[in-house]
């Protein structure tokens, strides 16, 4: 029987027992990491963005050190790659891709959407970013520069979008509800 045909839960138990026996990871460490992985979703990134939109000092800390900012609001980051945050402005729009594979800020956005790993997205994001954005319905104001961020190495990158107009007075929870995962990768921009 090949590894692919093995019952997943039995395989997990066998590997966990071996890791414990060899002193590499305890069952409780594995359970903690499993829970953190299951909890990771675009909702975590949305909480960070909404907080940054409503708290200027948090925004500054988030841009300086994404990992520390995520931990500050209770997102487990221990043992994970450093998180960098790219700020969209009236001058610059960021678009994240990993042309080599599928590096994705999983701690704050969860599993990457299927298209993020597709050969088409990876090739076109660096070659024709504006064509790709247009297909997503993302039309940038004239004069806005596109900065494609090819995530090739030790960092994981998320985008801090611009707060949409028409949201004055909204609290962080309501603002977080506006955000989709694509907004934090830069294929889309949030709107009201």
């Amino acid at each position, binding site marked *: 029987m090949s590894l692919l045909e093995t019952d997943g839960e039995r395989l997990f138990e066998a590997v966990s027992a071996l890791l414990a026996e060899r002193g590499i990871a305890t069952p409780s460490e594995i359970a903690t990491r499993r829970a953190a992985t299951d909890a990771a979703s675009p909702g975590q990134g949305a909480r960070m963005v909404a907080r940054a939109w409503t708290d200027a000092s948090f925004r500054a800390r988030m841009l300086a050190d994404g990992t520390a900012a995520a931990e500050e609001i209770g997102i487990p980051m221990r043992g994970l790659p450093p998180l960098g945050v790219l700020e969209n402005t009236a001058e610059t729009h960021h678009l994240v891709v990993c042309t080599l594979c599928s590096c994705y800020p999983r701690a704050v956005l969860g599993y990457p959407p299927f298209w993020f790993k597709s050969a088409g997205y990876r090739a076109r994001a*660096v070659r*024709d970013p504006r064509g790709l954005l247009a297909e997503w319905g993302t039309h940038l104001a004239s004069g806005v520069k596109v900065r494609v961020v090819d995530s*090739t*190495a*030790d960092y994981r990158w998320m985008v801090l979008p611009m707060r949409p107009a028409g949201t004055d007075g909204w609290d962080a929870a309501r603002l977080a509800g506006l955000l989709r995962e694509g907004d934090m990768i830069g294929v889309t921009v949030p709107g009201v």
Partner: protein
Amino acid sequence: MSAPGPLPAGTRVRVKDDWPEARGPAHIRTPHYLRGAEGVVVRHLGAYPNPEDLAFARPAARRALYHVAFAQPGLWQQGVAGDEVLVELYEHWLEVV
């Protein structure tokens, strides 16, 4: 590179036009489309164990990692002037121009 400290932001660099994958098994984090391209250091991101060695379970020295910006149209002979591609690159792939 034998520079004593990290390269400062604004340093003009060229990505080595090197193809280790043509010489044998290799794990490379420098995308094909950047080999030989010139860009500008935006930020030193710290130093990390070299993934080219980690991938083969070899001892991995820490290497400086940089965010380097490239003019996007120059890479593809298409696109809009002013657009950029920003990429993480290790020091041993960069030559100061």
